[in-house]
């Protein structure tokens, strides 16, 4: 069983806790392997003993001997093992998520959970960058998250980087993560939050600090493609898109839906649901609920195909 587990974990994907790319995830993966190997040995030993005991043709133990087995096997051994294990985990706890201190000096990301998407705000040195449904992090720098919810309880989880933390209405929870390996990972909502809970994911891009800084700096300004099609930008506002979505540098200032300021540069649309291209953007705009049940965005089935394509192309251009 154990070799099977080990073999399977070797080819883990982008959302695997066994393929850690963050400090907490690494520590916890180590803890996991220690426990798994130990647990496997204990399981095999106990079951072997039980199988031996259930053989008919063997010398029956005395009552005293059997009683001693209860004491050593059922009491002393577990107490020793559990004390060690508990101490290990308790020793781990304070160092895994160090809040305050230098952590607060660096990057701070606010996440607000919504049915079924993520509002993301980056804050550093007084600068504020609003985004949605994607998280970008620098390698080797501890990042503090502030987690809130606008409706239901959600849970923010990037398995490759660390454990999860709930987003609870009326509370602000904190999480602190330190990515150690650049790459693209996947996070997902882990607390059942309604009909499309399964479709509430997000890509996580971990890049070198310089690359990250450049990315963040670019996000403080309106998108490059904003003026690509003034007609489309006009349409976006006229058709009511701007009532719910914000696009930096335009009259679109809505806050009910995800911020679309640089939507063209995101890896996915619909919170990790679909690849980001003109075609999927148009599909999503035309009928969101058919792709994501319970989406609060109204359908735009009446929108002429040409207008739809124009808006989609413009959005894709917001880099």
């Amino acid at each position, binding site marked *: 069983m154990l070799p099977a587990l080990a073999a399977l974990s070797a080819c883990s994907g982008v959302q695997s*806790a066994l393929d850690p790319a963050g400090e907490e995830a690494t520590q916890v993966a180590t803890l996991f392997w220690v426990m798994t190997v130990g647990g496997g040995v204990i399981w095999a030993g106990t079951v072997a003993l*039980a199988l*031996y005991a259930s053989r008919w043709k063997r010398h029956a133990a005395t009552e005293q001997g059997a009683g001693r087995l209860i004491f050593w096997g059922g009491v002393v051994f577990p107490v020793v093992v559990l004390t060690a294990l508990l101490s290990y985990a308790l020793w781990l706890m304070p160092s895994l998520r160090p809040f305050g201190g230098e952590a607060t000096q660096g990057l701070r990301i606010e996440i607000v959970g919504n049915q079924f998407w993520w509002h993301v705000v980056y804050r550093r040195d007084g600068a504020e960058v609003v985004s949605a449904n994607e998280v970008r992090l620098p390698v080797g720098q501890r990042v503090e998250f502030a987690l809130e919810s606008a409706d239901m309880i959600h849970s923010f989880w990037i398995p490759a980087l660390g454990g999860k933390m709930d987003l609870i209405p009326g509370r602000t929870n904190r999480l602190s993560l330190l990515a150690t390996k650049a790459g693209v990972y*996947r996070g997902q909502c*882990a*607390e059942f939050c309604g009909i499309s809970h399964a479709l509430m994911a997000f890509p996580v891009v971990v890049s070198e600090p310089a690359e990250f800084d450049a990315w963040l700096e670019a996000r403080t300004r309106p998108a490059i493609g904003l003026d690509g099609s003034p007609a489309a930008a006009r349409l976006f506002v006229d058709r009511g898109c701007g009532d719910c979505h914000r696009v930096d540098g335009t009259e679109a200032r809505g806050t009910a839906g995800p911020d679309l300021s640089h939507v063209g540069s995101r890896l996915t649309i619909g919170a990790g649901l679909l690849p980001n291209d003109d075609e999927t953007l148009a599909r999503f705009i035309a009928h969101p609920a058919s792709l994501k049940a319970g989406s609060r965005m109204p359908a735009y089935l009446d929108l002429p195909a040409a207008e739809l394509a124009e808006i989609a192309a413009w959005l894709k251009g917001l880099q």
Partner: protein
Amino acid sequence: MSDHARPGAGAVNEDKAAEEAQLRAVWANPTGWRYWTSVNNYQIGLWYGSAAFAFMLFAGLLALLVRAQLAVPENDLISPELYNQAFTLHGTVMMFLFAVPIFEAVAIFLLPPMLGAREMPFPRLGAFGFWSFFIGGVFVCGSIFFGAAPNSGWFMYPPLATSEQAGIGADIWLLGLSFIEVASIAAAVELIVGIMKCRAPGMRVNLMPLFAWYLLIVAGMILFAFPPLIAGDLLFEMQRMFDWPFFDPERGGDPLLWQHLFWIFGHPEVYIIFLPAIALLAMIIPTFSGRPIVGYSWIVLAAVGTGFLSFGLWVHHMFATGLPQISLAFFSAASEAVAIPTAVQIFVFIATMLAGRVIFSTPMLFAMGGIAIFIMGGLTGVMVALAPFDWQAHDTYFIVAHLHYVLIGGMLFPVFAGLYYYYPLIDGQRMSDRVGRLAFWLMFTGFNITFFPMHIAGLRGMPRRVYTYPADIGWDWLNLISTMGAVVLGIGMFAVVMDVTLHRRRQPRGEQNPWNAGTLEWLNEPEENWGVRSIPKVASRYPLWDQPTLAEDVRAGRGYLADAKEGRRETLVTSVLDAEPEQVLRVGGTSYVTIFCAATLGTVFVALTFKWWLVSLAAGIAFVGGVLYWLWTGTGEIPDRDEKDIGHGISLPLYASGVKSTGWWAMFITMTGDGTAFASLVFGYFFFWTIHTDFTGGQAGPGAFWPMAALALFALAWSVTLGAREINRQGSVLATRLLLVLGAVLAACGCAAALAGPWTSAMDPTAHVYPAIVWILVIWAAIHGAVGVLMQLYCLARSLAGRLTPRHDMELHNVALYWHFMLVTALVTFAVVGLFPEVL
């Protein structure tokens, strides 16, 4: 019978035959459709068990539906809405309609013969519990056929479950299950009194079958675990129906309070499920090891220890909610500690097998398979109990795997072992060994194929409760394998169902004790309803092994209480520790009143779901009327004479009041559970106080005057009630009646004063959580006061009708006991709502 008169042998045989015929007639089931009014523990146990099994199969089908949907990525076999209803109902039904009720069923069926009693002490309460469970269960399960099943997960977290999106399903869950929880608490009362007070003479606590020890602990746990959920349900339903903001952060509430209350119930619940199943193993393993259990005291340690520790684990379901890590760590520690008594239990079984010679029968196969699976679930439990690991594993398929290893290994396999083991007690024949072994291997392999890959899927990031998942992120094959395993597991279960329904054609009528077991239940004759022909004197943990003449003496009617001359159903009451005979208890027989009460109470809950207020009110009045009729005609009867000869020169009283009466115990136990629910509400009050800087939210409080007035009035009513009991004992009937009237007036004024506090301050319970929690506490106290009034008036009526006399005064004792609890409730309520805000 009389040992002293010794006529001719023939005459003795004739006497015995007549005695037996009469006993049989007294305990006989009604025939025709009136069969369903039976209250006998065998019938109730069988119905209970069959219904629970049927619910389990239904929930199993839902699980197969879930697995079918997840077989391949991006599947669209069923809609997300149906998927969410299916998994919610799967969990809900398995937990509330199978896992807990099946043990109540087994206990009601097995305990009387195992303890050498004729019946449980309150057969009608057992029947009432069954019918409540059945009605509530059908209501909850039926909802999915109308697309109205609960869809927010079996844990029903607000705000999702308080929102519009939850629909009527949330009300069905809350009200349907509250109704079923009532049945569980009824069962707990019945089991505790049965085990403590209805054992055969000589069965001291150190000779009690281990099954009884486990069940005693479990019943006690129910009293402390279920009431917090009932309190939570109350707050929840107040928010859903009347917009009282207990879980709404906008108005001072907090969704986390529900999580606390739910898991204070939810984690002990796991052990409430697990311990009775282990109790079955503790009966099966000695039998097939051919020797008494090694480490009897260790089992008692394990059962009691687990029972206690299980109440210190609840926050490990909330490790990711952002509570301070220091708090999480306490619960991590307790969750690790609970592994110790669990390990002790496993090693007791291994030690017993080592010290004996094991016959590897079908029940043993299921037992061993269950243990192997359970140990693995236990080990992953030790892992997820550590907060850092749980931050990764929480709400993933790793947890799904863990909990199924625990529950299927620790509960389902032992229950199947119990089914194969105890089947001969149901109709005198064994189930098929061949089918049993085939079913075992199908279930065992199917189970592991289904659930082992889920560990890996979870660690690879697959969250729970997703109706679909993308391809190519490492979950595809694992899910397909799981689904195939589920089919194999399903086929295995189906084989057992076939065996149960078709076995009669294959198996010959077997012997009475086919496994050569040592405990009393194997004296039971499936075609007889009387429990035991006569009640034995027990002198061993395994009487059938150590007391060679016992079986024959019992069957020949040479034990205690061999007759039923007065045509009444009777059983013995004995002392708690040493089981010395104390009283002959006349228990209730066949009756419609149990079904009537269950049906009316069920109507109350169903009508509330649909907000049919008047129907609900009418049904509520009918229910109270039914209960009063039940009590009036079925309890506290003054016997035709004081004592009855139970044989062997012992005469016992037929009437007892106070501590000696089973009714007093029932009241004590019920009120303990009631007190726990009340404590949960008080916890809510202080919970809101901790999370806010100003927990009143600027709202006016009830002031100190009215709460203190209410407290004073209730205290007076309490002392007057106690006075009535004493005066009555001294023989002043008129003074007793006057005091009872005075007590009722005082208590009624107390209720009014209680409500006057928040009323005169115009506290609006929808404005903020502070007025809402104050109102709830005050209403709780006032309703209890009103019930107290009802009880005082009931005693008055009994006295006027000549059914309560200075010598026969059990009602007054029980009502006085109620008022002790009422006094504590009043003291805490009014000190908290009246004084706490003042001293702050």
